[in-house]
């Protein structure tokens, strides 16, 4: 575990030395600030972060890949991956360490939005438990996005390709539930049998899952969604690194 934490610490601290981390922070706070300032923070509005949390995915699907694109791609392009392979660190520790490091940085992003909660507390009467549920959702969604970003970063040594693939994938996850209502309900295969389409696509999208968290409802199915997808992509990243040994 100490090796995992060492990697996590290294990844987390090294991010603060990179200009891209500050660019990510800037973009994130600008996006969230505009959302909050324009649509949430005005006299008479409900003193809750629901709108910001619910809509944050449309910013995060671009911002998180910018943050994670270098995590493995940089190791490949610089050749450090060979060094890591020969070290006593296992692939599992490597993946977990990088995931924790990236997630900690994501937590810094999230923590920076507490300023909005402070403003709500000064000028309104926020519901603290509802706010806590909103943040729980935001953190879980971020972890899922980070794991997807790490997977694509592990797929290629080109950071741009990793970021683009992550953005496209996360973009699909972000909007698919909204699109699903406009798609066919099912696909018929030569009239032999039909595959239901709308319900699975709706479930796949992040939207309905984060929506409940943002309004203050913690549902076990949404918890499972974020945890299972995070786990799946971490596992796929692990398999990908493993496969590099015998490919």
């Amino acid at each position, binding site marked *: 575990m100490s090796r995992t934490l060492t990697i996590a610490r290294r990844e987390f601290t090294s991010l603060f*030395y990179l*200009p891209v*981390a*500050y660019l990510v*922070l*800037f*973009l994130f*706070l*600008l996006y969230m*600030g*505009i959302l*909050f*300032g324009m*649509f949430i*923070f*005005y*006299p*008479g*509005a*409900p003193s809750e972060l629901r*709108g*910001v949390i*619910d809509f944050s995915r449309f910013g995060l699907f671009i911002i998180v890949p910018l943050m994670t694109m270098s995590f493995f791609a940089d190791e490949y392009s610089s050749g450090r991956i060979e060094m890591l392979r020969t070290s006593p660190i296992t692939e599992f520790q490597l993946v977990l360490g990088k995931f924790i490091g990236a997630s900690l940085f994501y937590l810094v992003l999230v923590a*920076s939005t507490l*300023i*909005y909660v402070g*403003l709500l507390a000064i*000028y*309104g*009467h*926020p*519901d*603290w*438990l*509802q706010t*806590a*549920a909103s943040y729980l959702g935001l953190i879980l969604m971020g972890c899922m996005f980070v794991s997807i970003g790490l997977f694509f970063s592990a797929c290629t040594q080109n950071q741009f390709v990793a970021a683009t693939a992550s953005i496209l994938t996360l973009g699909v996850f972000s909007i698919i539930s909204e699109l699903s209502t406009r798609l066919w309900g099912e696909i018929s295969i030569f009239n032999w049998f039909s595959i239901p389409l709308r319900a699975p696509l709706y*479930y796949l999208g992040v*939207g309905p899952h984060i*929506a*409940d968290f*943002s*309004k*203050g*409802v913690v*549902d*076990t*199915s949404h918890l*499972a*969604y974020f945890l*299972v*997808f995070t786990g*799946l992509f971490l*596992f*796929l990243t692990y*398999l990908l690194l*493993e*496969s590099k040994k*015998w*490919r």
Partner: protein
Amino acid sequence: MAEISHTKRHWLYGFNAVVLVAIAVAILVLVSYLTQKWRTSFDWTSGGLYSLSGSTKSLLKEAEAKQQSYELLSMYRPGERSQRVMDLLNEYARQSKAIKATDVSDVSLEETERRIRSLYTEEIKPYETTIGGFEPLAEELTKFFKQEGANVGALAQKPGASEALKRAAAETQGAFTKVLPEKLAYIANMLRKLTESTSPEWSSAASLLKTGVATNEVPSIDMLETTLKIYVDPAKRKDALPEELLPYFASAEGRFKDILAKVTAYREQLDKLQPLKVQEVLDAIGERSVVVIGPQAVKVISHEELFKRQPGSDTEEEFNGEQAVSSAILSLARPEKVKVVFVTVTPQRLTGPGGPFSDMISTLEQSNFEVMEWSPPSATPNPQAPPPSPTPPAQGAGVVWVVFPPDPPNPQMMMMGMPPPDPQPVIGATRQHMAAGGQVLFLSEASSGMMGMMGLSGYPYADLVKDFGVEVQSQYTVVQRFQREGQDGELVAFVIPAVLVQRYPETEITRPMQGLQTLFRYVSGQMGPMGMPTVVGPAKTLPEGANVKVLVETPKSPDVWGESNFSEKMEKSTFDKGQDLASPLPMAVSATRGGVAGGGGKESRIVVIGSKFFAMNPTQDEVQLVWTGREVQRILRYPGNQELFRNSVLWLAGYENMIAVSAKANAALRIGDISPGTLTAIRWGVLFLGVPFATLVIGGIVWFIRRK
């Protein structure tokens, strides 16, 4: 150990990876399926905004404690609405063992109707007896008419019978032996059809007997009785029957009287039948409705009650499920409604459709109150108001009165020598009501403005509330200074007799209202502002046994004060130390006093609120559109107004356990007042520029230091 080739190893590892991915995906699908199937939700909002409201939970607890059980049946065909309705009904069932939720969309309507009928067997019994009693009566009538027909026919056979007698006898014999028995048989047959089916139509059967069938010339029992009456009354006989037969019918009068008595008794039995409640219930059931089956009765909730149309929209609807279902359960749980009487000095139309308090009344009715209004006879008639009456429609223990201060008199009428409204009859009646254990919500207003101009100062019910240790300082008008943008964009301060409150002392009535905005407002009249808010608080010395709690207090701010000299130059008013009252100012109190004579030893309760118009429709209805990230929601701007009024009435009625904030109101915990300048500064200085660019600056510094 045998070596495996590179290609074979490649395939082996590749296959292994594929299997692992397949297993991982299978686990994902399985976990997703299982968590969807057995999902559990935890509503973290403090008011349970996305679960059943506090008042519904209290209601269900009460049902459980009383061991009453309710079954909620959804008749909705499968679809989006059906899902929404069933989700809600299941939430009720999840919340309480007293509730069972069932989707009966696949059960035949007849079966559901049969279940409902089984609950009303006692109510149906008189119908069964009465309708069932028609057949023996019809047989007796048939026998009687046939016999009389034969007798009349025999007259024509007698030697020497005239042609006219023969013709009249033949006609009467035909009517008695053929037409009337046929009609009676027809009615009996129809009744059998209506009552012997799987869904007996008792109301229709009774209606058939009461009205007959005009198109088939089938007589009603009434008509039959009227016809028979002709034969027992010599005068009517002479007018209606052929002259040749009059001697015969004179001799048969006794027999006709006997049969008429039987028909009359039957008709009276028929008249005694009360309208069937079960029929109302069955008529209301439709494919898009919810049926609430209680321990003794059934309530049907229509689609229109569940999905309310939004005002001004033909398509947008709002799911009103919880309110509709809870109201139905409440009305079944407590068939006896508590009466609330709106009392005014001069006759007014407050409660009817379109009346100024109609929305508040609808809220009270949904909480199972029966609302009425009363004003004593007055010198100022109002043709649009209900007629005044010397006696109130309800008073004493278990009745809540809402007593309004007198309206300002019409200046023109005063100039014509008409006296100002006299509050004495209302004072007397209120005193009687309180002495008999009745509870009162007093509304008050500042005596400046119109009332002051008319020389009417002081709160007329001051003596009544003084007994409870409450003091209404109506000489003070509660005012607040606001800011608005002037024509050149500069900020201009102005003072109005209105105050916005968002935080409340912790009391039974106001505890669930924290964060909800309540506006205590005035109304602009032709002669100036009316119903201005005033100061209501505990008296300096409380009478023995009295207990007073402040419910509402104005914010402590230099912009809020109690103005002693509120004039026409109201916008320019300023706080005069020594004359005016500084905030925070109490504006509403609840007070109790030990048992009174007529109240069965129970404590007597009053609530006094320093605003006359705070529960009026325009304040209650004011909605705003709020973007929630996924949709635009309509929420009340001042939800506290409705909650304060409703909770006060619930507390007065002794329904403390029903006091809980409604889900809709909960949706409106708001950001308070921010001046435009501060808002702009926060937006640009902090949110849009300050914080984001600060991170860039920090990044730049880090980069610079590392580079160095």
